[in-house]
């Protein structure tokens, strides 16, 4: 009876008893979830437009962050380093299209998937070779990212907000909104959705798949850079960050592989769910829930909605 009580009653009693702690947990979950959402968003962009499951998305986050900090350490002023990091992500997109996607077009999906493993190990090797393998500290000050935190009195208690987290949420929201407008209202955005819907029809109106691929990989690279900056600011910039990419998989299962809103909502659900589990149920199992709980959420969800939250059917490839 004790067990049942501590699983099903006590956590909820705690939530109601200390609503300020609940809000704190939800907020922390939301911030983490937003970063998962950004990584998943990078996957979705590429998967929608090219049918490629990009295993390298997690590494792109690290690589982008590393490039930024590495250039800064080499003496480049922060904002120029930022511009150069953006240029490097463009160069990467261009190179991936030329060297990997174009020669492999019309190959089975599994071949392209394997090719993204190649990209992953290339980026790790290249990144370590150029910038060294030691963890680096994100240049938050030079990018004028705020530090510290403030407390808000609410619900009979205190909730603590990191200033950096607030900026991260704002920047990510702006970026997602900008992407949404771009995709729905411009010629290139329309072409992107067109490619996602039907390769052959897109080709027939003269859309160049090569150009679209460069654009989606670049967009995914930009998302990776933003993710890298904020995640790097919370911990460090190192290849250990790659493990957060593993969280993208449950997010994708939840949100569907082709849905941008799915990636975002899925990311938030996983982030919040994970934090709640860690805080309220974690002590019961001796902690460490963050390594696996996301998968439990995803698996339970799979049983009820195999196609994901906003699931669409898997796209066809020509």
């Amino acid at each position: 009876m004790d067990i049942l009580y501590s699983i099903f009653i006590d956590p909820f009693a705690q939530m109601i008893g200390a609503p300020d702690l609940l809000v704190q947990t939800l907020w922390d979950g939301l911030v983490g979830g937003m970063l998962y959402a950004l990584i998943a968003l990078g996957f979705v962009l590429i998967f929608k437009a090219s049918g490629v499951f990009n295993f390298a998305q997690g590494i792109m986050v690290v690589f982008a962050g590393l490039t930024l900090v590495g250039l800064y350490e080499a003496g480049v002023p922060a904002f120029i380093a930022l511009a150069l990091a953006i240029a490097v992500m463009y160069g990467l997109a261009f190179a991936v299209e030329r060297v990997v996607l174009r020669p492999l077009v019309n190959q089975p999906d599994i071949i392209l998937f394997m090719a993204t493993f190649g990209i992953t190990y290339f980026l790790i090797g290249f990144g370590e070779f150029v910038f060294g393998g030691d963890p680096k500290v994100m240049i938050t000050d030079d990018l004028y990212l705020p530090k510290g935190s403030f407390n808000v009195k609410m619900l009979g208690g205190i909730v603590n907000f990191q200033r950096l987290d607030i900026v991260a949420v704002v920047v990510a929201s702006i970026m997602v909104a900008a992407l949404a407008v771009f995709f729905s209202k411009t010629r290139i955005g329309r072409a992107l959705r067109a490619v996602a819907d039907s390769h052959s029809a897109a080709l027939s109106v003269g859309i160049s798949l090569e150009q679209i691929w460069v654009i989606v990989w670049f967009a995914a690279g930009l998302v990776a850079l933003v993710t890298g900056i904020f995640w790097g600011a919370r911990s460090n910039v190192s290849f250990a960050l790659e493990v957060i990419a593993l969280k993208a998989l449950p997010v994708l299962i939840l949100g569907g592989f082709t849905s941008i809103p799915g990636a975002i909502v899925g990311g938030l659900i996983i982030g919040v769910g994970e934090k709640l589990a860690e805080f309220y149920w974690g002590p019961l199992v001796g902690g460490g829930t963050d390594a696996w709980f996301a998968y439990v959420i995803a698996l339970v969800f799979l049983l009820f909605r195999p196609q994901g939250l906003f699931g669409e059917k898997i796209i066809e490839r020509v």
Partner: protein
Amino acid sequence: MRAPGGSQGGREAVAGDILLSVEDVSLSFGGVKAVSGVSFDIRKGEIRAIIGPNGAGKTSMLNVINGFYHPQQGRITFKGEARPRMRPHDAAHGGIARTFQNVALFRGMSALDNIMAGRTLKMNANFFWQMLRYGPAMREEVEHRHKVEEIIDFLKIQEIRRTPVGRLPYGLQKRVELGRALAMEPELLLLDEPMAGMNLEEKEDMSRYILDMNDYFGTTVALIEHDMGVVMDLSDRVVVLDHGIKIADGTPDEIKGNQAVIDAYLGVAH
């Protein structure tokens, strides 16, 4: 350009310059010979029908013309220029538009956006302005919306322009697809069974649109169609394929009386 009515059951041949010529083209998929040694040409301003029983190689022929497939043998000359390994993008650039046998629309997008997608190559504000949705990019959107609205009026699909095309009935989907091709303002329009699965009234409408755009815009049309009545009424010249081989080529009247054509159609259950 031509006298209305024309000769009985068909239209008078128009004697334009040659727009596209297909010479000795062969295409096979593994062991299957889809097209073998086919030659014909399409003249500027004409409606050229391509007919033949199921599996004759008609669709494969269109796919070769717009660069989806590259023939193992033979060559395609478009506007006097031989294009050995033309890609679909080049074909579209050169002024070749098409529709598909099994409707290929952008299902998640509205009819309007589908047709706008047909303007892709006509729009060229650069990436930077588009990101900002400002200046040249905005002006361009507005200007092309105008053109697209004209096409929407022409095809009488005003009421459905905001509807995601995946929800439209088949006949309307085919019309939107035609609109998208028209939005490219093509010189050569390839239509793969534009009337398949339509009722009589829809077929008449579609025939009207094809004739009108051929008359008003001077669009050259290559038309694959199974309905012989439609073929005879619309086309200036007809090429007949069977098992990947060209078995006849001529005016509708000549084709009607051609024994090889009659045999080919009788040999196949329809």
